[in-house]
């Protein structure tokens, strides 16, 4: 049962990270963050991580998703022109994650780790390729959640705090322009 939950969580997390990667507006980005947080929460909970740390991850991710609604283009912006490369990347990431960590797929912890690896890779791709401040911050929150979900209680707590902390940074491009 917990194995099925962990695999389902990993798939949801990957789907959320894919949504985040193809989102070109604030609502789409927040939706991606929410979905990937739900997936990582389900997967890490099923993998037997301490409930308090899992709850912290959920709170941190939800806070980051909420705070990211403050800046960026209005609307959903899902699958905008130019998102094909991110979709291809999302499929390649699954193949890569299975190659690296596929041997642990039989256990809930292994499945959760696979989901976290996929989120980490997709979020990193987002951070390293976008040019807008709000998009980079959204990607960084997802990266923090993914890194946190790769480890134990300390990493989960750190990931949650960092994701929420990154959400607090102003994503408005005008802040930068104003210097």
């Amino acid at each position, binding site marked *: 049962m917990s194995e099925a939950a962990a695999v389902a969580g990993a798939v949801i997390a990957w789907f959320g990270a894919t949504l985040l990667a193809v989102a070109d507006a604030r609502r789409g980005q927040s939706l991606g963050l929410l979905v990937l947080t739900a997936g990582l929460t389900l997967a890490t909970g099923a993998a037997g991580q301490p409930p308090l740390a899992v709850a912290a991850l959920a709170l941190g991710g939800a806070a980051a998703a909420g705070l990211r609604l403050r800046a960026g283009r209005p609307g959903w912006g899902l699958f905008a022109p130019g998102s094909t490369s991110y979709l291809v990347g999302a499929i390649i990431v699954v193949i890569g994650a299975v190659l*690296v*960590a596929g*041997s*642990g797929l039989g256990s809930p912890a292994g499945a959760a*780790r696979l989901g*976290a*690896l996929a989120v*980490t*890779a997709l979020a*990193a791709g987002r*951070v*390293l390729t*976008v*040019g*807008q*401040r709000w998009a*980079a*911050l959204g990607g*960084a929150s997802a*990266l*923090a959640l993914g*890194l*946190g979900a*790769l*480890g*134990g209680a*300390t*990493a989960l*707590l*750190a*990931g949650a*705090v*960092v994701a929420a*902390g*990154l959400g607090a*940074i*102003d994503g408005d491009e005008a*802040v*930068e322009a*104003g*210097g």
Partner: protein
Amino acid sequence: MISARAPLGRIPGAPALLGVGGVGAVLAVLILAAPLLPVAALPHLTPAARALLLASAAALALTTVLAPHRVARWELLATGLGALGGQAVLMALTDPLAIAAVLLLIAFGFAARTGARPFVERARGPAFAALLIGLGWAFVQLQGAAWVGRVGALALALGLACAAGLVPYLAAVDAEEPASSSFVAWTGFFGPALAISLPGRVLPALPAGDGAVFGATLVGLGLVNLAWGTIGAWRTASDVEAWRCSFLVDWGLALVGIGLFLPDGLAGSYLALLGIVLVRVPLYLWARPALLGRQPARLNALNVLLAVLLAGAAPFAGFPVRLLVLSAATQTAWPLAIPLVAAMLLGIVYSVRLARALGSHHGWAAVGLWITLGFGLLLGVAPSALRALGGM
């Protein structure tokens, strides 16, 4: 002395900056005082990390009070205290994944400060370092094929170089950018914190083969940075770039020292990192008015002394570092000493150029330079006491 007095109310984000400074100061004090407090949950620092944090605090106090600045001193202090807190957390955490996550927050937090380069460009390098460290550690922990662990060890070593902004992850240098938004924050502040804590966190968990990859990568990166820094500081047309290259030389010695996994090498690396924080960063801040063309470059008596210090000659900071790293290199493989000695000798060539670029300072700024020279002398004449302080 160039200084700015900006009223708090007129600076955008001033309350947030003061908040970050306050949180950073509290974190640094709590982590430093953890052994004295009856709270077991507080993270503890290793002796070497505690020494580096104290050195950073001393350098921050010195540069805030006495160095010539274009930004307001309260702004510099708040930023510095925030950075000090970040440094303390980076060194106190034991889980590399948590370290990677915190590195991410510091990367974007510092990129949010005003700078000449775009926000995303400034955050990208350290964010990539967080990714390398996080994924590297995850790969090392996987019970999979042997190559996955090797790739993980490689990523951990590259992550350390990336966090410090070293070759092959050099970012563009813009002389006009405030020092706290420039490469100095990573090469001179957070990088040393990671270098002093991360190897100690990951090495005990690495199998022998992965450990060898980690060490060899660090030695390779160290030699590349040493060569790049030495030739760059000598040949580049820009004085700012020459100063950045001089950081790479110190880092090259530090990385070789860590990668050799010998007590002498580790001690040399620890002293090199202390030297970066306590001597190299303050001197760069003093050099900035001349580097920006607001003061003529000059070689007076104090600058000649500083040239000796910057060359790594006795009795100053770089000398014991060079002796210890050479000793560790000859214990491992004597040919390794050849590039090290060559780089050390070439250091004499560019040190005069760097000292000239410091310009001439008077009043309190000159007092600050003498104090920095004193720090350099302390590191040079009392390495044994400093090694004992750092548990080396």
